[in-house]
Structure formats: C-alpha cells, structure tokens
C-alpha cells in the first residue's frame, strides 16, 4: 500500500521541522537567558551553580522545543485522513539515524559530565590546608592563608555554629567574613539533617558521628537563608534561619569578638570534630 498522493515527502516534512525548530530554539534560548536563576553570586560556588543552571536551561531548550515540536507536528501532519483506516509506510528503522542519534546524545552527556567534573574540582580546590594553630585574625579566611573553619551542628530542630579558630565559641546564627575561604565541618548530634545555605550555594548532610566537609568562598556581603533540606522530624519545616550574613572583614572581627566575650559565661563542651548522640532512646 503506497502512501496516498496527498502525503508529502520525507524531505518536505524534515525541512519544515528543521526551520521551525531553529526559529523556535532561538526564541526559546532568548527567553531562557532572561530567566533569573538562583542561587546568585554571593559566593564563588553560588556563582558557578548559577552559571551551570543557566547553561543547562539553555541546553535543554533545543531538546524541549525539538520533542514538543515533533509531537505537535506529527499529530497535525501524520493523521489518519478519511473514513478507512489506512496503514503507514512499513519502515522498520534507519541504521544511520540511530547511530547518529546515539552519538549526539553521547556527546551531550560527555559535555555535561566534563563541565560537572570541572566545576566539582574547582569547588573543592581553592582551599589550603596549611596548618597553623590559632592564626592571627587578619590571616584567617583570607584567600591566601588558612581557611576559616566553621563547624555546623545539626540538632532537632536548629543549626548551631562553632568557630574552632576562635576558641570554639558557639552561635545560633551563621556569620561569615567577605572574601574568605570557609571550610565547613558539618555534623549532627541526633538524626540526619542537611545544611542548606541557599544564597551561598552550599548544601551538605549532617550525619551523627561523621564530619562532612564542604567549602565556600564568599564574594559579596549580604544576608542569606539557612534551611534544613533533609527530613529530620516534626519541626523540619521550621528549621530555617533567615539571619545568616556575610559581613565585611571588620564587622566580622567585631562580631566574633563580641561572641567570644559573651560566650565566656557559658561552659561549652570542648570542641571536637564529631559529637555522638546519647544512645537512642527507643520508642520515646
């Protein structure tokens, strides 16, 4: 059963689709570039993530447009016409198209993976582990010297922060100096939490008995939100703090000095990389 004379050739359909795809893709990419994506540019890492999200959004435009266009076009152009059910051409495949398709998707995957691995390596680098006991304040966190260490302790249902470089003082809001390399040590005293500083572009799980390390390089002052991103029990949704801030170096120095002064009254347990919960009380 040959196709009826009203049917157009493969070539006509392909050309129409390609032209429509090209035009719509250009328009789509233009729109995608206007979209403002998080997390912003408060830190080096956040900037990288924003760039990557933007890049992937743009990369997905031709795929999205192509698939939707194909479906819509097929439904319009390749419909049954007339009352009698008609069969289409018995084409069973085209080896070259299949190989080309797999090759193109493989190349896209490879590009994505290379970009991801590259981002990953720059995110983890940029810190320097030069050990120095109690460094001078001016050196702490500066891009040249020892990174500022901050311990994040997840608890049901808030995060507290300890600064081992400043005597292990503990605070309930996270303050960081600008232009600093920060090395977060994230742990938990009870269940799993996930420390998510949204505008800073960092997220890492807090595990009891484990020290999860992640890095951030602050670039701009401003406030940020800290949330818990791992289900941790009843008040998981309330485990949010909008009072985190990246401060100027001077403001940070003044703040930490004040915390140290206030904290002298408290009898904190000695700083340790991890804190074990007391044995779980079952069935409370």
């Amino acid at each position, binding site marked *: 059963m040959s196709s009826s004379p009203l049917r157009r050739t493969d070539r006509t359909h392909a050309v129409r689709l390609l032209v429509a795809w090209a035009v719509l893709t250009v328009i789509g990419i233009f729109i995608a570039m206007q979209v403002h994506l998080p997390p912003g540019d408060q830190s080096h890492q956040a900037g990288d993530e924003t760039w990557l999200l933007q890049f992937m959004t743009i990369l997905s435009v031709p795929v999205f447009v192509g698939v939707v266009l194909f479906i819509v076009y097929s439904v319009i152009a390749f419909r049954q016409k007339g009352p009698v059910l008609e069969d289409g051409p*018995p084409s069973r*495949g085209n080896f070259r198209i299949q190989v080309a*398709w797999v090759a193109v998707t493989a190349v896209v995957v490879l590009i994505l993976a290379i970009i991801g691995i590259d981002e990953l390596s720059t995110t983890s680098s940029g810190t320097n582990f030069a050990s120095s006991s109690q460094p001078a304040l001016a050196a702490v966190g500066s891009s040249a010297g020892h990174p500022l260490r901050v311990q994040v302790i997840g608890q049901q249902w808030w995060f507290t922060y300890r600064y081992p470089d400043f005597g292990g003082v503990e605070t309930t809001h996270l303050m960081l100096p600008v232009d600093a390399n920060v090395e977060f040590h994230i742990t938990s005293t009870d269940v799993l939490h996930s420390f998510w500083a949204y505008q800073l572009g960092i997220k890492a799980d807090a595990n009891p008995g484990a020290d999860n390390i992640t890095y951030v390089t602050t670039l701009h002052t401003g406030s940020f939100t800290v949330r818990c991103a791992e289900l941790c029990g009843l008040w998981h949704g309330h485990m949010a703090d909008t009072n985190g801030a990246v401060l100027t170096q001077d403001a940070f120095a003044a703040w930490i000095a004040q915390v140290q002064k206030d904290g002298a009254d408290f009898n904190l347990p000695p700083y340790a990389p991890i804190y074990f919960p007391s044995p779980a009380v079952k069935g409370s």
Partner: protein
Amino acid sequence: MATADIVDGGPPIIQASERRLGLPTNILTGIVLAAVGYWAGVQVGNGFALNDALNTGVLLGYTFASIMFLVGIGFANYPLARLFGWRVTSQPSGDDHAGPWRYLNLSLDHKVIGVQYLVAMLIAMLFGGIGAMLIRTSLLVPDPPIVAPDKYLTLVSMHSVMMVFVASAAIVGPFGNFFVPYMIGTNRMAFPRLEALSFWLVPPAIVILLAAPIFGGFQTGWTGYTPLAEQADQGFDSYIVGFTLIGLALIVSGVNMLTTIITLRAPGMTWTRLPIFVWGVFSASILGTFAAPILAAALAMQAMDRTIDTTFFISSAGGSPYLWENLFWFFGHPEVYIFILPAFGIVLELLPHFARKPLWGYRTAVVGLLGVTLLSWFVWQHHLFLSGIAPALRPFFMFSTEMISIPTGIVFLVAFGTLWQARISMTVPMLFCLGFLFNFLVGGLSGVFLSDVPSDVTLHGSYFSMAHFHYTIVGGEIFAIVAATYYWFPKMTGRMLNQTLGKIHFWWMMIAFNLAFMPLFAAGLLDMPRRVSTYAVNLQTLNVWVSIWAFILFASMLFFAFNIIWSWFFTFKVAPANPWQARSIEWLMPTPLPRRNFEKIPVFTSGPYDYGNPSAKPVADLGGPPDSGRMGGLGVEPAPS
C-alpha cells in the same frame, strides 16, 4: 494423577482438598485467621520483648497476620497436601470459587489475577491520592499548619509509600499478568501460585500501611532514614512489614515473569518478535528479582535494630546511617526503573498500533530498555551526592547518571521514528501516550539538572526534585497506566470505556497535572525544601495555585474512576473483539475471553507490528501445530511423586 487436567491446557487447576484443613479456605477465613494471627503475634512479641517499646509485638503481629491471611485464603492447601500425602482434588475451573466471588478469592487464572490487581491498584491509588489531597490542603496556609506537623509528616510518608506500592506493581501486576501469557502464546504463567502470591501479598501490605496511624504513624518519608526511624513509634513497623511484603511480591513476580517469558514462549515467538511491552516487563522483572531482596534484607536489619537491639544503623553504637542510605538506594534506584520500564513498554507497544506503522528500530528499542536496566545498578549514589560520600566517587556517579539519558533518548527516537509519516488515530490511549512523551520529557530534562553535582547542590532535597520525580512517575508512569487501561479494558472486562469521557479525562488530567506540578520546579528554585509542613510566606500564592490544580487533578482521577465503574457495570454492550483493529494476538481472541486462552497452542508467524505490509500474515496461526501436545506454553506441571 493430578496433572491429567493440565495437559489439555486451560488455567492450572490443582487445589488440595479443602476439608483436610478443617475449614473452608476463602477470603473470610483469611480475614479471621489474620486477626487471630495478629493477636498471637502481639502476645508472643510482647512476651519476648527485650525493650519496652512494644515494636516486637507489633512487628510479629503484622507478620503473623500476613502469614495467617495467606493460609486462610488457601495458599497452604497445596503444600500441606503434598507434605502429608492428602488426596489432591482437581477443579477444572482454575480456582475453588465460581462467579464474581472468585475475584475475591485465591485464583490461579492469570486473567482473574490481572483484574484483581487492576482493582486493588486503583483502590490503593485512591488512598494515596486522598493523602496527597490532605497534604495540599495543609499547604494552603504557610504557618501555622492546618495539619499538625506529626500528622502532616505521617500523611507525606503514607502517601509516598502507598504510591510506591502502586507504582511498583500497577503495570506488571494488572497488564503484565493478564497479557504476557497471551502475547507469548501460553495458557498460564510458569508458576501460577507465585503469580497469585504476588497479588495476595499486596492487600495485607496496604492494610498494614493504613494501620500505621493507630500507632502514631511514622514521620520518616518513604526513605525511612535512620536515626529518624529509630525515633519513630510503632507506626514505623507498618513501613517495615508493608514494604517487605511489597518487596516479596516484586521478587516472586519477577522470578515468575522471567521464567515464563524465557521458557513458555509458543513456537514462532522468537526474541525478536516479542512485543515490546513484554520486553518492558522483562527488564523490570530483572530489576525486581535482583533489587528487592536488598530491600527485604535492609528492612530486616531495621526490624532487628528496633526489636532485638542490634546496631546496624546506630552510629553511637558502632553502626552507620550511611549503611541504610546505601542499602536503601541500591534497591531504590533500580526500583524507580521498575516503575518506568514497563511504562516505556506500554507507550512503545501502543504507538505502532495507533500510528499504523511497524515499531521503528525495534532492536534499538530493546537495547534501550536493557541499557536502562543495566545502568540502573550504577547510579544509586546520586541520591547521596551531598551526604558526605567520598568525593572521588561523585564524578563516576555523575557520569553514570547522565549516561541514562542515552538509552532513554533511544526510547524517544523509537517513538519519533514510529510517528514519522504515520497514520495516527487520535484515540484516547494514543492521547495518553503522547501526554506521556511530553511529561516524561520534562521529567527527564529536570533529571539532568539534578544529575550534575554542582547544580544538585542547590536543587537536592528541594521541591525541584519532588517535581522531577512526580513528572516521571505521575506524568510518565500513571499516564501510561491510564493509556493501558483505556486500551486493554475492552479485552479485560468485555466493556469499552466511554471514549468521549476518555477524551475529556485526558485534557482535564493533562492540563491539571502540568499546572499543578510545573510551578513546583519554581518552588524548589525558590528554596522550598521537600516534606515541610510550613514554608516561607512569600510562597503562599504559588502553593495555593498548586493546591487548587492538585484538587482538579484528583477530580480528574475520580472522573476516570466514574468512567470505569459506569462503563464496566452500567453499560451492557459487549465490546467488539478488536475495537482498535490492532494486529497483536490478544486482539485476535474473542470477547469475552474464554477461560482457556488457546484451544491449541498458537504458532506465531509474523511480528505484532507488521503494518503497511499487505502480504503480512496474521500474527499467529491459532490452529496450532499438528503435534503441540507437550510444547512450550502448555506448561505441564511436573508429575507428583
């Protein structure tokens, strides 16, 4: 010789004598014995409990209740009769009960099991959907929550676990059990009792899960992460036992499907003629068979941590929560492909019939399905990118996760090739298949965002990932299930579903689904974490919008249920034998279907998608080969000793 009745085909029919047990085995007996079993389990468990949390009693209660339920409906009859040498009676009906009553009882007929599964899955979906509606109701207000946090998290957990039950079984269960034997030309599955067992494990699992609120519910989500699970009340024991039962159902169903497809194909049903739906079931069965045992083992470890004070997952006593995370996701990621592979199978099966073209690139499609099956074992740690795993592992799992887009891309290529220059009939099943392609495209593309570690840092654990997997499972799998229901319902029940209502249902569901879930990507990008009972005030408008469209989506499913009930029970017109004029073998069968699938085992003479070829023979010769007495497909049971 009990096998005498088997040889002439028909459903497998051996049943032990009922009277030997001293009571009739049916569902009522099952329910009574389950209650007795629960009571006994609680007594035994509480008597031996090592700690005062009463988990042992509840766990043993659920376990005994499940076992006694299975005994009560008759699973013990045959093994006991064999064990003690009692007389085995044969009933040519394929089950012990007649009329509609047999749909509520143990039946070894794959057609009955398919219908049982379909109804059970629709009911479970209704429960899960009601949970979703309560969640969305609570999220109408950011703070204070309408539903208290513990109740809210119990709702989230029960919705997710219930829907995981549905998603695991709602294609292979109803449509796999019903149509795979037809498609490969056999009268029965390889292990009919395992087939029945794979169904009868599901109702206890659903009931046990629904019992969780009696004991305070559980607030852990479907992941059940420790140490949070350690803190949970006995409600969490529902999760352990219910999920174990579903895991067992996946194992027995997987083993059975693999054996059936490998060994019981009729003459002429070569691997390259196998309908693509059967390939989808086959790949999912590989995953079910090998992944679900890991779940069962991990759940047993959780149960031991809760009862006999082992410390597998308790970090303060030498265990590790990471162990649970890895075991869970080593099962959990193959699990999501157990959801979607049969859905790929349905969509690629239906497209050729409604495009009136052969499936384009059949062998490539098979490679795509098997490629997903293989790769799915190597991606589980992308759920743990931020958990503190060794950083050196992250590039590997990032790459393996992104590689999944290659076989998934093949599925789209095959769909496109099939649609190219086709003669598309815009029937209701076709509409849902096209809806699947759109929704799964969105789900797949958003998955790429989550696969790259740096972008995952922002998106992980947020509503973005929640929207992503709802696009793949609801927009993908559920759309495929609905397509399959509209497509095969006339053959399964003998009644056409109303097509006009079906078209309304499609547009209603498609629009409501996308308007409900698309904004949730934005919610995730705007730092709304998953599973929160409260959220930032500035996101209220967005959440109210989502809730309203979610209610409309739920209403579309009620409309679907109405269509099913109306068409099934209140239209009295028998459906035509082949309403779609499709080529595949199930449509060569008369409607209503005779109890015995094939009088003679068919000989397959061409592929199921041979459209556009005027010289193509019908897909099978139902007259059978001259000497088909003991050929594959007849499924002769080994003679008893």
